């Protein structure tokens, strides 16, 4: 049949549902527009590019809403013979990616404009990475998952290396690139095996193929394939023991990019994992179940234990991200026990992802705001923040409480749905994993609480007291105003002259950063106090019947 299509008989143009593809196309359009403008305007585009990028992101939300209004949740649109599906699950994630992208653009605006490494490409790259993620939410076949993964990863490698002359940024880029490419190569090898066993790349067909059932002769190949694919994505979501790149990359990358990687890129990894587990490997829960169980338990425990001894706030957040990833993997581990448990687990992971996006982006926005003043990422610089910068201390406390899972901040509901999904399986592995998660929820308070304690209980940090008077002279500061923790000790001596432009004094937060903080903190609180705002969104099923 496929031969017919390629054959001389004639190429039949496939029917394309343009409405269903509208979000992707809009995003592509905005990205192309930004690149064109970059060529035309060069330096003059400096002030309008971030604004356009932000507006573009909001523009992408329009087709998402029209698709929602068109009832996509009830009847999914299936394109390209099942390779691309726009359903409630995909739509929610597209919205999440676009919203997270918008917040990251807000965080980047002043960071990029005031740094030494300005360039319009920054936004173009970010938008193409986001396009990859948006595609990923709908991808339901191996090829589109692979293409989406590379589309979101390749720009991200460049963004991590953004500060070209900073050796740390170089290091972050190299590590991220090599690890990422290696992981995707391993994943591809697994995919090729699965393709061989099932004869198809479409996930629903893979799941249905006789080669994948437990009794099949090629069981060993299937196991190898499933394990390789999951391991590939375990890198992406930074699950233990495949997390080793995360702390270095997070520390070395520009902070907005760190936020982007830790939220959007991780979410994309989970999206693919969920699509694979629920649609592709559904029959083989005996393979992915134990593997994910181990990944979840190990990530939670190891992430937490390593986070406890971190001195740098960004590294701490990296390990905290490993632990949080463990929490998100946990429901997937027991999803295979029944369709009901699977739906429960889908909602749990989605809920966690939404809340995690709000609280983690918020935490990084605070880290950026604090680092603007202190010029360091040392956790000690949070000492006495409550006295020197009370509003920021309060906001950070909300985010930390949320990350630790203490009501009324949103995180409690995320943890709660995970526990619920684990307990709902009503089997020993679910209960044990729930107990492991409970113990880890407490360990995590050890380091989140420690930062809170530093902010509230300690005397103000000495160096920060010195940094504040410097504010007036920032315009001529040699370091430039790259307010990144990692930039505290600039290693390059070739500091660029800073182009004349409007600067925000350091003691005033730029408007865009304020907006990012407001959006994320409000979202975190609303999710915590009125959890139905998330749970109604995430009450979607991935097991919705696929035609054909």
């Amino acid at each position, binding site marked *: 049949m496929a031969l017919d299509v390629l054959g001389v008989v004639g190429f039949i143009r496939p029917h394309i549902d343009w409405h269903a593809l509208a979000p992707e196309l809009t995003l592509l359009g905005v990205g192309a527009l930004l690149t064109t403008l970059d060529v035309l305007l060069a330096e003059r585009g400096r002030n309008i590019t971030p604004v356009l990028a932000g507006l573009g992101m909001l523009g992408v939300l329009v087709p998402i809403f029209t698709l929602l209004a068109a009832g996509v949740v009830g009847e999914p649109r299936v394109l390209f013979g099942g390779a691309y599906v726009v359903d409630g699950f995909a739509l929610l994630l597209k919205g999440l990616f676009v919203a997270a992208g918008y917040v990251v653009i807000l965080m980047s605006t002043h960071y990029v404009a005031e740094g030494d490494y300005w360039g319009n490409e920054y936004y173009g790259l970010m938008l193409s990475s986001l396009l990859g993620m948006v595609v990923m939410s709908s991808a339901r076949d191996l*090829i589109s998952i692979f293409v989406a993964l590379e589309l979101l990863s390749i720009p991200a490698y460049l963004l991590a290396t953004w500060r070209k002359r900073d050796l740390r940024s170089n290091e972050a880029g190299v590590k991220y690139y*090599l690890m990422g490419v290696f992981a995707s*190569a*391993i994943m591809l090898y697994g995919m090729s095996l699965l393709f*061989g066993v099932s004869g198809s790349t479409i996930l629903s067909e893979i799941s249905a193929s006789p080669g994948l059932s437990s009794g099949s002769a090629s069981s060993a190949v299937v196991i190898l394939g499933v394990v390789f694919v999951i391991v590939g994505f375990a890198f992406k979501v930074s699950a233990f023991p495949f997390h080793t790149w995360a702390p270095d990359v997070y520390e*070395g990358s520009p902070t907005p990019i760190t936020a982007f990687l830790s939220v959007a890129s991780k979410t994309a990894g989970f999206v693919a994992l969920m699509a694979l587990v629920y649609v592709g490997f559904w029959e083989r829960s005996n393979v992915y179940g134990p593997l994910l169980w181990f990944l979840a338990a190990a990530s939670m425990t190891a992430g937490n234990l390593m986070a406890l001894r971190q001195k740098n706030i960004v590294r701490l957040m990296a390990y905290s991200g490993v632990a949080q990833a463990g929490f998100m993997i946990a429901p997937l581990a027991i999803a295979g026990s029944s369709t009901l448990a699977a739906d429960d687990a889908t909602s749990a992971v989605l809920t966690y992802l939404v809340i995690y996006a709000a609280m983690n982006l918020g935490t990084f926005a605070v880290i950026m705001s604090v680092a603007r003043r202190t010029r360091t990422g040392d956790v000690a610089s949070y000492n006495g923040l409550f006295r020197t910068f009370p509003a920021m201390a309060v906001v950070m406390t909300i985010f930390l409480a949320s990350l630790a899972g203490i009501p009324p901040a949103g995180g409690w509901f995320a943890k709660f749905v995970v526990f619920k999904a684990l307990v709902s399986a009503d089997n020993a592995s679910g209960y044990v994993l729930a107990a492991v998660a409970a113990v880890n929820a407490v360990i995590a308070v050890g380091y989140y609480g420690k930062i809170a304690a530093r902010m509230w209980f300690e005397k103000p940090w000495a160096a920060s007291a010195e940094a504040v008077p410097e504010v007036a002279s920032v315009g001529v500061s040699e370091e430039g105003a790259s307010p990144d923790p990692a930039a505290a000790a600039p290693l390059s001596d070739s500091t660029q002259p800073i182009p004349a432009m409007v600067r925000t004094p350091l003691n005033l937060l730029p408007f865009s950063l304020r907006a990012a903080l407001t959006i994320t903190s409000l979202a975190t609180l609303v999710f915590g106090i009125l959890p139905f705002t998330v749970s109604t969104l995430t009450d979607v099923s991935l097991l919705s019947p696929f035609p054909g």
Partner: protein
Amino acid sequence: MWLNQFLVLSAVLFSIGVYGVLARRNGVLVLMSIELILNAVNINLVAFGSYVQTVVGEVFALFVITVAAAEVGVGLAILLLLYRNRRSVDIHDVDMMKG
């Protein structure tokens, strides 16, 4: 019977690639080892594709080749940047950040 020969070839390539990634210190050689893995994947895809009589395998392989080209482009750019700043592409020396 003939399928197995391709699979064995690809498995050997894959193993050499993984070994290279883990053992090599030179960034460019690591990159080449990763290419070996990707080639193993391509051999698998084409062999399986022709075994089950579908072009999907070859289409997938084409995608892999194209994307790998882009990937290598970016990778070499990053390694070049590293070389400019450090005069070395030894990835074991890249260890400023620890903890």
